[in-house]
């Protein structure tokens, strides 16, 4: 076991450019054993590129990586694993049909010497020991598809330990975890530190960063801005370092608007997801929906948008009862959705910015039999780009090539082209950087002031607290509480969100 505090990984003057664009410029980083080293920066700051270089997915143009003083030659993903660098990706892709033990042993299965097949008993025993060492009781014979995302993560960590990782990179590890699971992860990270493992921790959640990190490195525009002991920094100064400017807090003040009722549900239920949800949403109001993962929030939004049908209850838009059979009807009925997962359901990556923006309301530009009037389409798209300040570098550019924040703006602008009465937002700022997040908040507030009714699902409590007029808390598929935001606190919301009897 390495001595705690000894430098094990050194990145020296690494630069990388993609087709002429600088992604990293002369970045240094050193990592000590047993430390949690947070890497923060806006999207596009170069975090992913740096990590991809560390795990051997991308070769650096210049600079070198030293592991315990020795230069890593011919850096490949296999080589990185062997050298003791493992990464826990944000989106995990386990072998779903295989067992926990098979996943942990993947790539280094114990082999019986003579027949050459995998020794399952040894493999299961080793996995069980490993999981135990991490303080976890997962049966090694369980199939991955039966487990939860948080447990997949633990299996990934166990796998890293099995590879005798000295460095574990965690990319937004808590983005899919509940509060409770996050706490568990923090414990595991503590154990890893005691084992002398160095952890690079990437997160947009600064609260977590300060809770966990020993040191913090800030990247901005491909350069290292600084590396500092975490205790000598605070959230405000860190944000300033990340964005290079002050981010003013924005708080929605005053009592909830008393406008006309736009959306109303009565006893809305969907089998296996949520039951008996009744609420109303007024003109110009922002209604936050808080709750843990799996509380049924996303499913509720999906039903409201016609992606799924309710099993009981009713939905009324402006007093009129509606039963949407598919999203096209919901859009026509005045409801738009900004979906939870931008990449998988927000936009069409290969289509241009213009074609994405106009997709929800293409008929507006159509003449005789569906011929698209491209001049009018382009005008509308250009207008949306201005309104939402989308930095897209040309309307003809595929959305795939845009930054995360700009992609999210495209998704929102697309939803807005239909001029909806109700906007459903599912985790509107997940995975986007602080600057883009502020833009998003301003946009949401602007919509509300224009009289739009907004329903916002978010796992980010500060976001709910600062933006919404009222909060609904969902717990295990039911409505646990409804409160005016001005009269509540994060603790109270959490209290209602926590599963009962657990």
């Amino acid at each position, binding site marked *: 076991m390495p001595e705690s505090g000894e430098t094990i990984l050194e990145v020296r003057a690494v630069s990388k450019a993609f087709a002429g664009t600088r992604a990293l410029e002369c970045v240094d980083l050193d990592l000590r054993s047993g430390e949690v080293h947070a890497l923060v920066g806006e999207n596009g700051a170069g975090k992913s590129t740096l990590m991809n270089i560390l795990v051997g997915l991308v070769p650096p143009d210049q600079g070198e990586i030293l592991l315990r003083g020795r230069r890593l030659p011919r850096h490949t993903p296999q080589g990185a694993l062997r050298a003791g660098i493992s990464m826990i990706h944000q989106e995990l892709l386990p072998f779903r049909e295989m067992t926990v033990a098979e996943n942990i042993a993947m790539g280094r299965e114990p082999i019986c010497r003579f027949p050459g097949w995998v020794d399952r008993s040894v493999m299961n025993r080793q996995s069980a020991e490993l999981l135990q060492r991490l303080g976890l009781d997962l049966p090694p014979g369980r199939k991955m598809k039966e487990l939860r995302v948080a447990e997949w993560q633990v299996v990934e960590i166990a796998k890293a330990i099995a590879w005798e990782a000295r460095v574990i990179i965690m990319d937004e590890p808590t983005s899919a975890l509940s509060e409770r699971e996050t706490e568990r992860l923090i414990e595991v990270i503590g154990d890893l530190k005691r084992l002398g493992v160095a952890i690079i921790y990437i997160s947009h959640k600064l609260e977590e960063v300060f809770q966990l990190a020993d040191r913090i490195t800030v990247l901005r525009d491909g350069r290292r801005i600084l590396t500092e002991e975490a205790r000598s920094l605070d959230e405000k100064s860190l944000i300033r370092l990340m964005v290079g400017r002050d981010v003013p807090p924005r708080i929605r003040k005053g009592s909830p608007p008393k406008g006309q009722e736009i959306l109303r549900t009565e006893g809305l239920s969907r089998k296996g997801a949520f039951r008996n949800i009744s609420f109303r949403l007024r003109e110009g109001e922002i209604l936050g929906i808080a709750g843990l993962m799996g509380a049924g929030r996303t499913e509720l939004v999906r039903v409201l948008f016609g992606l799924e049908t309710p099993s009981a209850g009713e939905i009324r838009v402006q007093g009129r009862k509606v039963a949407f059979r598919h999203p096209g009807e919901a859009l*026509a009925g005045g409801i738009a959705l900004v979906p939870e997962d931008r990449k998988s359901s927000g936009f069409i990556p290969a*289509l241009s910015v213009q074609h994405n923006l106009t997709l929800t309301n293409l008929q507006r530009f159509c003449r005789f039999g569906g011929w*698209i009037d*491209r001049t009018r389409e382009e005008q509308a798209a250009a207008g949306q780009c201005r309104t939402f300040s989308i930095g897209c570098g040309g309307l003809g550019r595929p959305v795939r090539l845009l930054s995360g924040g700009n992609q999210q703006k495209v998704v929102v602008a697309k939803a807005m082209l*239909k001029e909806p009465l109700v906007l459903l937002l599912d985790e509107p700022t997940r995975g986007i950087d602080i600057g883009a997040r502020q833009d998003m908040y301003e946009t949401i507030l602007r919509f509300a002031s224009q009289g739009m009714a907004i329903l916002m699902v978010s796992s980010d409590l500060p976001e709910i607290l600062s933006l919404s007029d009222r909060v609904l808390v969902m717990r295990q598929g039911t409505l646990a509480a409804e409160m005016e935001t001005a009269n509540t606190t994060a603790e109270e919301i959490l209290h209602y969100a926590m599963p009962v009897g657990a």
Partner: protein
Amino acid sequence: MPPLHRLPWISRMGLPAAIAAIALALSIASPNFASWGNLINVFRQISINGILAVGVTWVLLCGGVDLSLGSQVALAGVVAAHFAHPGAFPTSLPFLLGIAAGAACGLANGLVITRWRVAPFVATLGMMTAARGLALVLSDGKPVSNLSRGFTRLGTGDWLGIPLPVLVFLGLSFFSAMILKYFRLGRYVYAVGGNEQAALVSGIRVDRIKRLSYAICGASAGLAGTVLAARITTGQPNAGLGYELDAIAAAVIGGTSLSGGAGGIGGTLLGALLLGILNNGLDLLNVSSYYQAIIKGGIIVGAVVLDQRRIREESESR
């Protein structure tokens, strides 16, 4: 960023340049190649595969695949031939019924895929077997011959010196290209193939678009089968074996993505042309058809490799 500007140019010009180079080489190697008569011949030879390739481009663009095209060709040919005996019906009837037979198969494919969520590969594999069987049942396993002159003219006649199958092929290409590029339906096809979930959330009736694409693809196969029957003056229940693969190959060489959402008719046209020129030229040079198959296989894979490289470079240039 110069590479961004340069790359689309290369990808757009790569295929025409390759075709030009091959054509030039062939016309030097074989003096017959560049004659007007032979060029007409090339187009006549590619018209059937071209019609199928245009049809399958619709399905590929919306993220599917159709393996039943060859069988649909046979079925449509047999159906058309049944109604094309001299003096029995007006000439337009076999023509329309042939197309309808293909469209029905395509629609059935689309329904199985969208209603029961069967993977396109499996659904159309089933149709490939079933439609072939149906063609054999309808024809009793024998070629349907004795067709009216009016009907066979569709395959053998010409207009202003251009063979009718070629005109059908070019007409269908033009029609498809216009819809895919300038009409809402076309935009939706690209959206569905590009990201089905996002298309759904954008309010597009994804299932409808898919069914329609399969039906259009089937109708094209029906058209191809009818033209083929007219050209060989019989409805052959064994016609069209393996045609689907040539059609998909033409589309893929032309840059249409097998995962959907990218490509188009222009590329498919060039892809079909490349395959046709190679076939014709290598025939003229007396290259054995065995070797021809090897060359063709290499080109299919090579085209996709180049395409993948282009996509990779494009996304790295971000």
